[in-house]
């Protein structure tokens, strides 16, 4: 069997899909000294990489009293134990007792820190949620303000348009009234002139008519 490429080998190493069947690659690695050496090296490295624990961050602003309290408690406990066993010749007993006590103190401190971490974690989640809510509220308020402003602006524009239209309508009306008035005055003048002319004709007619003889 041909050597697998390093890419194929690493894919197989991490249990992912490979172009060749996994069993085939496994038997090649078992038989091929070079490939086995490569995989063994990766396996050892991988095991060591797993030694890196997931560290928990301790914030710079974390109140110190918790740690100091743990340290002080440990110090006092050590003092009591040393005092108690000061004259004892059984050094192993003293060491064992100290070890147990230290373990207990450390366990208690660990527990406290773990609770503290959980509490802070919950706080952060709550803060983020509150922040998001506040942002939303702020966004809604801004939206409402913008809407009100736009509405006012639209109303003002409508009013201005109406006023202009009304003014134009009034001016047109006035012009029509003036034209009508002039027309009526012309008709009246013509009528007066007609009446006078008729009157004169009647008068002429009356004057020229011969009087009947008796």
């Amino acid at each position: 069997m041909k050597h697998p490429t390093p890419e194929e080998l690493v894919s197989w190493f991490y249990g992912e899909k490979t172009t060749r069947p996994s069993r085939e690659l496994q038997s090649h690695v078992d038989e091929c000294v070079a490939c086995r050496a490569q995989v063994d090296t990766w396996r050892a490295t991988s095991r060591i990489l797993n030694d890196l624990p997931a560290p928990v961050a301790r914030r710079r602003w974390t109140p110190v009293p918790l740690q100091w309290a743990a340290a002080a408690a440990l110090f006092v406990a050590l003092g009591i134990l040393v005092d108690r066993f000061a004259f004892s010749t059984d050094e192993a007993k003293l060491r064992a007792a100290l070890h147990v006590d230290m373990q207990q103190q450390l366990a208690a401190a660990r527990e406290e820190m773990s609770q503290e971490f959980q509490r802070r974690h919950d706080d952060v989640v709550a803060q983020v949620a509150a922040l998001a809510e506040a942002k939303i509220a702020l966004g809604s308020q801004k939206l409402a303000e913008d809407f009100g402003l736009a509405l006012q602006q639209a109303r003002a524009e409508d009013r201005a348009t109406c006023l202009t239209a009304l003014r134009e309508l009034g001016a047109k009306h006035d012009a029509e009234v003036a034209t009508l008035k002039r027309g009526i005055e012309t008709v009246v003048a013509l009528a007066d002139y007609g009446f006078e002319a008729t009157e004169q004709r009647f008068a002429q007619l009356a004057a020229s008519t011969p009087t009947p003889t008796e």
Partner: protein
Amino acid sequence: MLSPLLTITDEQAMWRVKMDDDPQAFARLVERWQGPIQRLCIKMLGDAHRAEDLTQEAFARVFARRKDYEPAGRFSTFLWRIALNLCYDELRKIKRRGESSLEGSADERGETDFMADTAGPDLQVVADERAEHVRRALLQIPEPYRVVVVLRHYEGLKFREIGEVLDIPEGTVKSRMVEALNQLSRLLKPLVSDDRPTL
């Protein structure tokens, strides 16, 4: 209050955040992803304090960019990308300032390893030293290799998914993983001999 959201997928939760600015759905996403993102940042930067700040920054950025989220894509890819970009920015800043993430012990950087503390004090010291060695080795390999190791080895993403996050072909991801493992093998060689099982 979050119980109705327990069963929804990340994508559904993010959709609610995008469309309705749903704070509960967002809180749910934070709860689910805070751990993985913090682990990624710690391993990329080697500094637990910075990692914690960046984790918070990553979620703030997710909320700020919620309208950019495409429901066709996975939420995790969207989030990993944001977190990784923040890590890259931070690493650039560190480089500009001439600082080194390798400086200081884990304790000075404010890290503690209570989670790994199950043995006695002596064994704990040994475990701490090994962890410090691994941390330094990770920080010594170039970023493109480091990110692949973190996502594949520690976070369990498939090579295909890593390709999507980094926007590179799957074959390139595998090549980088091979190179990363080889470099780490060289750097961690002193520990390999200690690690051999005793008969």
